[in-house]
């Protein structure tokens, strides 16, 4: 069974540009999470989808970040316009129906904003 996949693995963009990150969860996993790790700091929660609905988006830093989950399958996280402080590693995770189930993580997307 395929694990959680993320695309791209790396992205380098200029300040002010737009970037879209994609996450494909494990098939059948209703819960999808986005996290971010800024250099030298802890991994922080961004938001949680249950199927196609946003369950909790309390961790989204500001309105430059937009997350969607089309049809309850893959998810995208768009940053527009990107700022220097958005640099970091963005992780996606998915889990089965219970919110206390193990979260399976993707390899992450390393975003660098110059």
């Amino acid at each position, binding site marked *: 069974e395929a694990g959680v996949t993320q695309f791209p693995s790396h992205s380098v963009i200029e300040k002010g540009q737009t970037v879209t990150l994609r996450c494909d969860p494990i098939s059948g996993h209703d819960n999808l*999470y986005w996290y971010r790790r800024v250099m030298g700091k*802890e991994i*922080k929660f961004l938001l949680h989808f249950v199927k196609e609905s946003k369950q909790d988006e309390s*961790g989204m830093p500001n309105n430059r970040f937009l997350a969607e989950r089309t049809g309850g399958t893959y998810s995208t996280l768009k940053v527009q316009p990107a700022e220097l402080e958005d640099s970091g590693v963005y992780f996606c*995770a998915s889990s089965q129906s219970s919110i*206390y189930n*193990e979260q399976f993580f993707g390899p992450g997307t390393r975003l660098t904003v110059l």
Partner: protein
Amino acid sequence: AQTVTQSQPEMSVQEAETVTLSCTYDTSESDYYLFWYKQPPSRQMILVIRQEAYKQQNATENRFSVNFQKAAKSFSLKISDSQLGDAAMYFCGRTSYGKLTFGQGTILTVHP
């Protein structure tokens, strides 16, 4: 803010020996789960072990075990018979309605 604290940025251990990684957390909830995840260099994070807060018995998974002290809000990870493949960044985490709150991570080096 409810936090998770890992006070050891780096730890090292000799192969075949035992090492303990510390973690403390803050929560106002009575029911929650605690996790240890490991991230080997350039690889994905994987779950090492999970503890349900309502269970008094400490979780074990082969060479990995936890010392869960609920009153003290402490959740340490013990790795016995350390192997070279245990070298990784280890993250302690706590769930709250699904979302994980992580500690800062501990880099574990295993010396042959």
